[in-house]
């Protein structure tokens, strides 16, 4: 069965992760509903615009920009994990409250090249891993506490 474009966009919008497709000049081709919701930027504003215009800070965030460049120029895929990037790369928020407090959601990003006839671009997917990161930080703090207490007991 062939899946036509409207069905495809319904599927993209049903996803609980951000899906963005960029063409070779980093212009946005796909901006799914999750991206609209979490970035606050409607798709009709995003589509057709270069990503750096939508997120000007990308120019100074080396890693995501590099990953996109590598996908476009070298067809290489990249992963950007929240564990080694203290500051989440994109201004995406879980809800209006966190947007007001400027608390970005924690992001796990996969960048993959796409090459079809007539299209050479890349896609990136953003997963909200805030809950996992918070849990991890909590465990880390607890384990630090425990080891301090252990040392005190041993002393």
């Amino acid at each position, binding site marked *: 069965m062939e899946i036509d474009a409207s069905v495809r966009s319904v599927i993209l919008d049903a996803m609980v992760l951000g899906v963005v497709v960029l063409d070779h000049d980093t212009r946005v081709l796909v901006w799914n509903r999750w991206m609209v919701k979490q970035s606050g930027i409607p798709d009709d504003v995003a589509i057709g615009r270069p990503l750096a215009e939508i997120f000007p800070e990308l120019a100074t965030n080396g890693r995501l920009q590099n990953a996109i460049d*590598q996908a476009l120029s070298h067809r290489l895929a990249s992963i950007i*994990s929240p564990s080694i990037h203290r500051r989440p790369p994109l201004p995406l928020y879980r809800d209006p409250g966190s947007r007001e407090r400027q608390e970005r959601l924690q992001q796990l990003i996969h960048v993959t090249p796409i090459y079809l006839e007539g299209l050479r671009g890349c896609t990136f997917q953003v997963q909200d891993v805030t809950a996992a990161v918070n849990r991890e930080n909590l465990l880390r703090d607890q384990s630090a506490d425990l080891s301090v207490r252990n040392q005190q007991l041993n002393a």
Partner: protein
Amino acid sequence: MIEVSDLQRDALGEIFNIGVGRAAASLSQIVNDEIELSAPMVQFVPSNEAMQVMHGREFDEFSMVEQDYSGPFNAKAMLVFQEQNALVIVGKMLGGVVPPEQLGEFEQEAMCEVGNIILNACVSALADLFHVEFNGSLPVYQHGTRDSMALFEDLREDVPVILIVQIDLLIRQHSVQGHLLFLLSVSSLEELIASIDRYLETLGID
């Protein structure tokens, strides 16, 4: 066995040093501190001797990041660190409060990205200097034990030779060693050698 000359090996060593240099710049930017990387040794070894070459000493557990590359030649590339060394890298990168005793999901993900940065930087250096293109897959993290690493012994038929690049990494006064492995089929190895020759020719060396 396919012969690789000193000149070909040196050329490859130079390209890998360009690659790890790029990776060091990216990693330094991420941790906001200087990370140095060098690739002091490039070797082609029979696959059943790979383990010996990598770790003459005692070892038990490994941390591996794997990516597949396809293009003029295909390779499964792996960045392999002894688990202890991977813990040092991740600990230093995360600015770890508590040194983890093993790599949890969080640390594995960090390691995956570190591997991804180093592998892609090396492959893009190869692509640039050879004027070719590769397609790269997403990285996969794997935990390896001495037993699972024995898989290299069984590779002989498909992968007679493994290209091993020693990687020295200096992070916050800590120096750790790892290895980059490229598993190449006979035809891919031949194509790699041919690419090196073409590269040397463009430099006017042959």
